[in-house]
């Protein structure tokens, strides 16, 4: 685009912000490595960073004051769901919202919209910079909720977090603390990039410093839902297969029965995460690499704890700016995709496939909870047209799932492709020449 202002941005092809293609199965490669030259094969076959399964620990109640000594200098203990008092080293858990609010139950009886208090609509006039009166000395302290949720009073060193829900949407219902430590995240990012060295951009390799990874709490809406879907279309079953003609003119023909196929499915979904920030929800791979952060979903949201700003000290955060109504089209899109995946098993008898032509969705009930989820983010800005491209490498702060976008040195990649192509063409020409 030569002039960015002349036209509004083109919306993604279907579904608000959602990529159109179903992602490939984990571990599947777009190429058969056995057919490739050795250096490329080694790179493709190198192990991926391991994603661990997290399990929950029994949790108790938490306060912003240390329950033992009353100090306010409280931090999240890395690698655990614990809070630790920096003053007396006392450690304790936050309350799990799953049990606290009964979020795991009653999904099959959901009616209408249940919206948790932290997921309410953002007030139009709410500012992101808020001032608070320090409870220690009474001084006014400003907190920019755009990227931080706690501050230290510059007069009395009292640490306080934003715990009461404020109208600008910055305070969620729950937070899922980091479990993967920084060293671990750095190692995973290194391993991920080591697997992508041969054709990586030279500047990227030179400037690669995974130690600069940043821990960020990103805003999500976690949605439970109960819905019904109907799909209709046509399916074909092969009845005969025969060949006509002979020699070079031999062609295969098929006969098939055509059926009108209708399917109905009632289903519930538990803890579907949706990005509740406009910027992060835009997954257009031509202009950004947010699909990388989208790929490391899901999180073990069952282990989320009730909001406590102390979990965020030392990390940055991004503020929610989307309301339930903004996210509803995205939810419906994903529910329809889930329904289509659910009915797939029921149409296996159509061995020539099914073409779905119509679909409808009836959402009976939804439950929305806003949550901050932990992500380790490494970024590299590749200069280019229209401001270049920001490449992310993201590590799920709970499971360790790692995904990233490594900028490519185009000339190297094209040269390798041409070399392999020329080699194959040489063999082809040799075969053709020797047979004619």
């Amino acid at each position, binding site marked *: 685009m030569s002039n960015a202002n002349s036209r509004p941005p083109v919306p993604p092809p279907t579904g608000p912000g959602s990529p159109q293609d179903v992602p490939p199965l984990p571990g599947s490669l777009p190429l058969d490595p056995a057919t490739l030259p050795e250096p490329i094969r080694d790179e493709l076959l190198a192990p991926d960073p391991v994603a661990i399964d997290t399990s929950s620990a029994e949790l108790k109640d938490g306060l912003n004051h240390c329950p033992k000594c009353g100090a306010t200098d409280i931090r999240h203990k890395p690698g655990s769901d614990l809070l630790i008092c920096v003053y007396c080293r006392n450690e304790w858990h936050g309350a799990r919202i799953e049990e606290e609010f009964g979020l795991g139950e009653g999904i099959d009886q959901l009616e209408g919209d249940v919206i948790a208090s932290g997921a309410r609509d953002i007030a139009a006039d709410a500012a992101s910079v808020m001032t608070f009166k320090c409870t220690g000395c009474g001084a006014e302290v400003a907190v920019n909720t755009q990227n931080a949720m706690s501050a230290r009073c510059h007069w009395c060193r009292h640490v306080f977090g934003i715990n009461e829900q404020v109208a600008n949407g910055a305070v969620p219902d729950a937070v899922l603390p980091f479990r993967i430590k920084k060293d671990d995240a750095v190692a995973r990012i290194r391993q991920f990039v080591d697997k992508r060295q041969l054709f990586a951009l030279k500047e990227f390799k030179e400037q690669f410093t995974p130690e600069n990874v940043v821990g960020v709490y990103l805003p999500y809406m976690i949605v439970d839902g109960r819905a019904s879907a109907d*799909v209709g279309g046509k399916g074909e079953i092969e009845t005969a297969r025969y060949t006509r003609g002979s020699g070079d003119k031999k062609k295969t023909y098929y006969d098939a029965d055509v059926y009108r196929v209708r399917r109905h499915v009632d289903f519930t979904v538990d803890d579907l995460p949706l990005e509740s920030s406009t910027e992060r929800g835009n997954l257009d791979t031509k202009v950004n690499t947010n699909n990388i952060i989208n790929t490391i979903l899901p999180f073990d949201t069952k282990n989320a704890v009730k909001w406590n700003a102390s979990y965020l000290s030392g990390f940055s955060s991004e503020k929610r700016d989307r309301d339930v109504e903004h996210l509803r089209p995205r939810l419906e899109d994903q529910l*329809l995709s889930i329904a289509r995946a*659910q009915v797939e098993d029921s149409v296996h008898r159509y061995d020539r496939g099914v073409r779905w032509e119509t679909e409808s969705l009836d959402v009976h009930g939804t439950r929305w909870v806003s949550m901050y989820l932990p992500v380790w983010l490494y970024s590299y800005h590749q200069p280019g047209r229209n401001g270049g491209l920001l490449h992310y490498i993201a590590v799920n702060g709970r499971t360790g799932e790692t995904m990233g976008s490594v900028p490519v040195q185009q000339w190297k990649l094209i040269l390798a492709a041409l070399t392999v192509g020329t080699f194959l063409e040489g063999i082809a020409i040799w075969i053709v020449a020797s047979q004619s």
Partner: protein
Amino acid sequence: MSDDSSLILLALGPAGAAGLYWGLYRHYRNTDKSHAYERETLVEARPVTGSDEKIGEVKGTQETRIRGDNVRAYRKRVQRLRGDGEREP
């Protein structure tokens, strides 16, 4: 050897080059990846119901699959019917 099969054989070079380029590009940039929510979300579904009605036959087609097969393209939206049967504009 027929002309057809030599043409196919000669297309091997360009096809291999393009395939390698795209395969490696996706390995580095991962533009095809996203959250596989169809697979990774906890979904509880009641048994699927529905109907199948024979409406015709196809004779002597050369296509190996039904045209526009989208049974695995879950995310390709088709015409959306609203609750009262009205079609969306």
